[in-house]
């Protein structure tokens, strides 16, 4: 009896964790963080004279956090269909992200060697590039799935 109660309690906690979403106003906060990060990236690249590596790292992280907040925030009217569409968009983003991470290094290597003879050496994608791509795909697909529902 006691074990059953513990299992039920754990199940409820797990369900609560799975269903966790930020409220709709976090969407605005996420968009603001993304815009500030992108503007900061442009300023760092074109306006600052010396290379500031820590600022680059920081802006990459804030961009990802902003997009994650956008991805996790609820819609104005959140119902079972939006939940299903969001789940679909996460699945698509995961599959496309894995394919991107597998293929893109070869594409970059091939293009680089085609354009400049003896171009760049083969290198894997960084975590920022893969995560950014996956979040972009998720947000884009979710938006499109909602548009065509």
């Amino acid at each position, binding site marked *: 009896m006691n074990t059953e109660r513990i299992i039920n309690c754990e199940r409820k906690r797990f369900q609560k964790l799975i269903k966790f979403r930020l409220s709709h106003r976090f969407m605005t906060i996420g968009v603001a963080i993304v815009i500030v990060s992108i503007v900061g990236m442009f300023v760092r690249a074109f306006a600052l004279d010396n290379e500031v590596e820590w600022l680059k790292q920081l802006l990459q992280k804030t961009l990802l956090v902003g997009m994650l907040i956008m991805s996790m925030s609820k*819609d104005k*009217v959140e*119902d*079972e*269909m*939006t939940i*299903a569409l969001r789940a679909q968009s996460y699945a698509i983003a995961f599959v496309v992200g894995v394919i991107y991470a597998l293929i893109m290094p070869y594409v970059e290597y091939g293009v680089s060697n085609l354009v400049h003879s003896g171009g760049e050496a083969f290198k894997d994608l960084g975590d920022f590039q893969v995560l950014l791509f996956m979040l972009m795909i998720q947000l884009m697909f979710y938006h499109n799935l*909602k548009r065509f*529902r």
Partner: protein
Amino acid sequence: MENTIKVERAILNLTQDDLAKKIGVSRQTINSIEANRYVPSTVLALKLSALFGKPVNDFFKLTKDD
């Protein structure tokens, strides 16, 4: 799966928006259900049933493809 929600809604003289508010979903969800693009959950089907005062089978029908 096909449905006659549009007809039931017309009988009650409700707009898509009215129906959506009554069962707590978005207007687009009602539109998708009516157009047979989305099959609602049992919970939503029972909410519609309670609102229309009819069994679920009266307005949701299985097709040959199902």
